């Protein structure tokens, strides 16, 4: 485990054309890391995430991605991702190939990746048009004991998984508290695991059964206070729901989107600078 400033961590570990999962389920979304990827102008990424939201809207709108693997793309409780829609509907700023799953499918796909399985299985249910997509990703299988119809889903093994977490301890272990989504599975499935954290502590104040990633499964970590804003870090700051609502207007038009990104992301040296520019820094 290497502890590096975020810009160096991204420069060292994220390359054009890789598959990159910035995971997080509403909670602990690694916004700072995604913004740094935008600043460093990565291209042709295959973005992976169960719930692409504002961060992927920004990354897609800024032209970082050519593919998206996902199960639900929206601004939770608000509405559409206008930039993702623009990419899908009008190829702006470029075409975006979609690999579309359900939540349950992505969950088992990450689990399979985390377990070095080539695929996962789940119960097959009545046919939906997801099975008719141009790149149908699931296949039918039969239980060799019961004859029950099963569905096989290919494993997800991102080149890089990026998470945000609350703490790193003196040994480099990572603590996640609260809603974890599929973060652990995405972490264990990755070829390279980057983590940003709110703070470094000597020792965690957490029980034995806490969600901890051992230092030696982490490739690189960076201390980035506020690194999940406008999502949240339980115990540190709440979700910026007002910002999430405001994003709908910002992202609706290409012009206003680009203006906002130039001013706040590209115009900021780092995440602290960005939070100051948003008036969020205390």
């Amino acid at each position: 485990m290497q502890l590096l400033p975020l810009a160096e961590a991204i420069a060292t570990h994220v390359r054009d054309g890789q598959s990159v999962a910035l995971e997080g389920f509403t909670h602990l979304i690694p916004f700072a890391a995604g913004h740094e990827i935008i600043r460093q102008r990565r291209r042709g990424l295959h973005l992976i995430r169960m719930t692409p939201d504002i961060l992927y809207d920004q990354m897609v709108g800024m032209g970082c991605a050519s593919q998206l693997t996902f199960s639900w793309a929206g601004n939770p409780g608000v509405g559409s991702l206008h930039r993702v829609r623009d990419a899908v509907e009008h190829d702006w700023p470029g075409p975006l190939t979609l690999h579309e799953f359900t939540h349950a499918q992505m969950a088992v796909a990450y689990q399979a990746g985390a377990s070095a399985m080539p695929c996962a299985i789940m119960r097959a249910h009545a046919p939906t048009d997801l099975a008719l997509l141009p790149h149908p990703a699931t296949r039918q299988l039969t239980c060799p004991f019961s004859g029950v119809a099963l569905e096989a889903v290919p494993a997800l093994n991102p080149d890089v998984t990026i998470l945000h977490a609350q703490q790193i301890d003196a040994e480099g272990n990572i603590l996640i508290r609260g809603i974890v989504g599929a973060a652990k599975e995405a972490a264990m499935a990755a070829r390279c695991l980057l983590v940003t954290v709110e703070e470094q502590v000597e020792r965690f104040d957490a029980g034995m059964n806490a969600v901890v990633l051992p230092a030696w499964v982490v490739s690189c970590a960076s201390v980035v206070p506020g690194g999940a804003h406008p999502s949240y870090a339980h115990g540190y700051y709440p979700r910026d729901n007002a910002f999430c609502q405001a994003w709908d207007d910002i992202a609706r038009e290409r012009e206003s989107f680009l203006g906002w990104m130039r001013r706040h992301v590209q115009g900021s040296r780092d995440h602290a600078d960005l939070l100051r520019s948003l008036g969020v820094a205390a």
Partner: protein
Amino acid sequence: MSAAPWSGDEIMTVTAARQLADGAVCFVGIGLPSAACNLARQTHAPRLVLIYESGTVGTRPRVLPLSIGDGELAQTATCVVPLPEVFAHYLQRGRIDVGFLGAAQIDRFGNLNSTVIGDYERPRVRLPGAGGAPEIAAHARQVLIVMKQSPRSFVPRLDFRTSVGYLTGAGSRRAAGCPGGGPRAVITDFGILRPHPETEELQLAALYPGVSVAAARAATAWPLQVAAQVEMLAGPEPHELEVLRALDAHTRQAHARPVRIAVPHSGPSPRGLS
């Protein structure tokens, strides 16, 4: 309905809440379903178990969440489990009594589209996609659908079938091996549609005060069947409206609260090896 002392959303929410028996285990989506479940919990069903797909089990939010994973949901939960467990140990295992769904389009058999309007490859409107809906639709013991009724959304043919209702009706869902019971009610801003016991085609089963069969039919782009007996639903009780509006008010307040994050003023980030 414009003269009524409640909004369309309010009567839909109250009607949805009334469908929930105390003690039921609900898989809750954000927005109106979340409001309905929490209204029920704060009125007639205090032992309702709410599960959000973020992994919060048995949550009791005091403030309605904006997202499926707000901190409030974790803070007030019996436990927070990894997301794969929610779908495997709870939903697929058949432990969910009621799943809530909404969509952009519904057909006469309660099949749903939340993927695209228009052609998949070059859609007119790209919608959020499947999320947890296909498995909720397949596995929940019963599904409640909440959607505003209009000819654009209640369509003869879906542009994309994201989640199954009764497929083509007449037992085809069960024959296809879906373990859950399918949509038992579609709650709209006109009333309630329920499946015909044999054909499984949705038919108008109940209406809100002051709403006509003709109006409900006009808001449906297929020839809507009408049940032999159409129930007349009572409007929201003052108590229900009070609780619901208080929930909404708390939520608006909470969501408007500015976020402040302590950020170090300068200095290099720590570095090192472990």
